[in-house]
């Protein structure tokens, strides 16, 4: 795929070179602009791979809401110029039959980034609901927690003696649900 794309670029460049005396014709200008776009796509796709790798590393050990927000911001930032770039891709694909190098990967990355942000938003809502994320204590809650942490006699306690439930073999769940 990459080789096909590179050849296509080279062909366009050669064609433009061969028509040096007609360099200011629209075809030449389009070829140059397409090459610039392909440079942008190479850069964008490389950045996407880098951000994805960072996200994967963080996913394996992240525990802090700030980590998730930072990764989310990277992808949002990456997506910012995407609509404009996608419009350019469509424009050049209609001009050059052999396509635009890196466009397929870029499209996939756009879809993945959007899906990732959609999923992240859904996860954030659930994780906020259960108390993991974005819990900023109200002044009353902070006061109550302060009192509990500073005074051992403060705070609601278990009404019954907590008791550990013994472990069972997981196979019991496979036999009879």
């Amino acid at each position, binding site marked *: 795929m990459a080789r096909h794309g590179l050849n296509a670029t080279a062909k366009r460049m050669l064609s433009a070179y061969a028509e040096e005396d007609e360099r200011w014709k629209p075809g030449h200008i389009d070829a140059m602009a397409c090459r610039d776009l392909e440079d942008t796509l190479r850069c964008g796709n490389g950045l996407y791979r880098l951000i994805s790798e960072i996200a994967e590393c963080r*996913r394996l050990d*992240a*525990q*802090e809401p700030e980590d*998730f927000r930072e990764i989310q911001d990277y992808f949002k930032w990456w997506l910012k110029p995407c609509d404009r770039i996608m419009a350019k891709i469509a424009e050049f694909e209609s001009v050059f039959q052999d396509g635009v190098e890196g466009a397929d990967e870029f499209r996939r990355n756009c879809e993945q980034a959007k899906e990732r942000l959609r*999923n*992240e938003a*859904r*996860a*954030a*809502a*659930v*994780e*906020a*609901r*259960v*108390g*993991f994320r*974005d*819990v*900023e*204590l*109200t*002044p*009353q*809650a*902070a006061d*109550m*927690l302060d009192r*509990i*942490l*500073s005074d*051992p006699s*403060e*705070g*609601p*306690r*278990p*009404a*019954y*003696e*907590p*008791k*550990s*439930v*013994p*472990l*069972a*073999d*997981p196979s*019991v*769940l*496979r*036999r*009879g*649900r």
Partner: protein
Amino acid sequence: MASNLRKVPFTKELLPAVEDFECGGQVYEVEVSDWIQNKGPGCVIDAMEKWGTQVWLYVNEQNELVGFGSLGTTNWNWPAPSDKRVAVSLIPSVGIRSRFRGQPIGPPQDRYSTQIVLDLIAAARKITDVNPVLGLFVHPDNQAAMRFYKRVGFADFHQRTKGDDPGVQYIGMILRLDQRPALAVC
């Protein structure tokens, strides 16, 4: 005579065991069954992988799946402009199958639901790197759950969180876990 539960640590491989888990048709009950069935981002597998949450499935003496419980840790932030935060234990989700609600007949402390929450409290007491506080959030329409948690010892601590529906404010409840000193807040 009390019917005692046993528990199995939950793993991805046990998702089929909860595929028909149901604890009622109310919004807040569906939220609980969706969570354990991992229906979407932010549910049980994310809680385990991203937040280090422990999850257990509870079975009765007939090896029937009765319910599940979960326990994690998180940081809660002081209101701005303070940047103080406190590490606490958290029950992200807990559920009991509809057919076992109120079972077994007998003293409240022997009911399956109480056994599960007392087990989570016992497990939370063993987590030593957070403060001796256990929190959870309850859907405001789930009055039965709020009564139940109050009976076990939890109290409303004037904290609310939003979920998927911004119009719903989940009610925060906490319990003091004794037997270890408080850590310094950061």
